[in-house]
């Protein structure tokens, strides 16, 4: 088999010759580039603080902020109130995310797979998506109280739409000939869905789940800002009122870790289940 596994031996060489023509910045390994940009950012931050362009109270410098991050870390390890808040917010985010994933997936399949869903449900969903969803936070607080339930619903509310859209788009992305092939071997609609369309939609579904992972943090925090409780959002709000911005930044750091962890878990699952597709570098942009 001469045409077996066509991996051209020319490929690495040609990319090397191309490399040496690229500027130094493009040639360096990624980790150095990352450190360079990150360090640059910190430097600018420190300069702004050192030159007192902004009052130290409003913008604590990197050392103060990192000090506070470590401080909080010690507290979290010892199980103090930061730990409590982190745990509450994590529950809100995770449960909201799971609910968003479930609702989004089911509605996505209905909308993507049935003409009725496409004609009668999708227009409402699109209209819904145009609503300023954040404005509903007080409504959920009024309905469900100041506990975690109102935040879970808020996270669900903000995060489920991308899952619907991506699931439906994934189902629609199926190759027409593949559908014909399934019909030609007598596949039922259910078989076509389960053995062809859903596996084919997996990359899209995971893209939606990654967006939902980030959105559910937004939902939970907005829920906390506007609906009280004992989560990280409430702590951040209080710290900001006390002008303890080093704390605010430290808490936001931990808040981001929840979203990043969820996002990372989705990326890991995607690599496991969508093994036939090379991970795309562009995926990183969805974190932002």
């Amino acid at each position, binding site marked *: 088999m001469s045409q077996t596994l066509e991996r051209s031996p020319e490929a690495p060489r040609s990319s090397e010759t191309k490399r040496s023509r690229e500027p130094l910045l493009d040639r360096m390994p990624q980790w150095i580039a990352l450190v360079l940009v990150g360090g640059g950012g910190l430097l600018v931050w420190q300069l702004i603080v050192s030159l007192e362009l902004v009052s130290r109270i409003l913008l604590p410098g990197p050392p103060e902020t990192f000090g506070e991050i470590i401080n909080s870390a010690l507290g979290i390890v010892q199980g103090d109130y930061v730990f409590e808040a982190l745990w509450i917010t994590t529950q809100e985010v995770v449960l909201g995310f799971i609910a968003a994933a479930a609702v989004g997936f089911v509605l996505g399949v209905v909308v993507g797979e049935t003409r009725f869903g496409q004609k009668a449900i999708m227009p409402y969903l699109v209209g819904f998506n145009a609503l300023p969803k954040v404005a509903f936070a007080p409504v959920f607080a009024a309905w469900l109280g100041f506990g975690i339930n109102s935040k879970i619903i808020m996270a669900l509310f903000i995060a489920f739409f991308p899952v619907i859209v991506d699931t439906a788009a994934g189902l629609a992305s199926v190759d027409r000939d593949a559908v014909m092939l399934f019909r030609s071997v*007598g596949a039922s609609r259910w078989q076509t869905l389960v053995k062809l369309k859903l596996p084919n939609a997996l990359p899209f579904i995971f893209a939606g789940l990654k967006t939902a992972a980030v959105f559910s943090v937004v939902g939970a925090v907005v829920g906390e800002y506007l609906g009280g409780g004992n989560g990280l959002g409430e702590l951040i709000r209080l710290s900001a009122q006390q002008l303890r911005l080093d704390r605010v930044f430290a808490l936001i750091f931990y808040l981001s870790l929840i979203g990043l962890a969820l996002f990372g878990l989705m990326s890991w699952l995607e690599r496991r289940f969508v093994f036939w597709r090379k991970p795309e570098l562009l995926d990183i942009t969805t974190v932002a």
Partner: protein
Amino acid sequence: MTTEVSRLGSEIAAGSSKDLLRAEGVTKTFPARDLRALDPIDLRIRSGEFVTMIGPSGCGKSTLLKIMAGLLPATDGRVVLDGRPVVGPRTDVGIMFQQATLLPWRTALENVMLPIEIRHGARAAKSMRQDAVEVLNSVGLDEFEKVYPHELSGGMAQRVAICRMLVTQPSVLLLDEPFGALDELTRDHMNEELQRICEARNATAFMVTHSIPEAVFLADRVVVMSARPGCISDEIEVKLARPRTLDMTTREEFGKIVRKVRSKLDLGGQR
């Protein structure tokens, strides 16, 4: 005029052994676009015959093939396969498209077993595993059972698609430009391979192509279609000895048939 020509072709075909697949006055209109895609098509394919169809793009070749496969209803007329009218997808039809349409999350072997799995369930597929392996071996894909499609070249992917089509032992093969996406060298190679497979099984095949040499190389008979609405404008018997080799394609007798098909095709284009 057109119907006369196609009737003439049918009479030639009816002369010899039994028809396995027959299109009788098949027409197709797409009402949504108010488009008449096929004028009455009459076509007979004998058992063991390899018929190729050639015609300008958009003249309705794929539409006709889908109707013959029972994937699309005819507006008028009917298709008869093995004595029974085709009213939907049939187990005795094997089909193949321009793209291999392999499922990337399944290994080559699992792709080959897909039709069995869908028709008879996962357990039946498992018990047929050895047969599927043998089909893969027969097209030179030994030890490729566990390889995933993204590791296969275009030609190899189409070989797997051939295996998937053969594994259910269909009595007729319907091929829609199966090698149209391959480079010319691979394509020649695949044509030889396909000829060998069809000879070995005495297969009956109907293949759509837009390459004249390919149409002539494989065919016992080339059917020429003209456009708008699609109808059969000519049929040309190809009486070259088998097995045919790529060498033969440079010979005068081959070139003569190619030129003949091309002239008919041009005529079709002028209308």
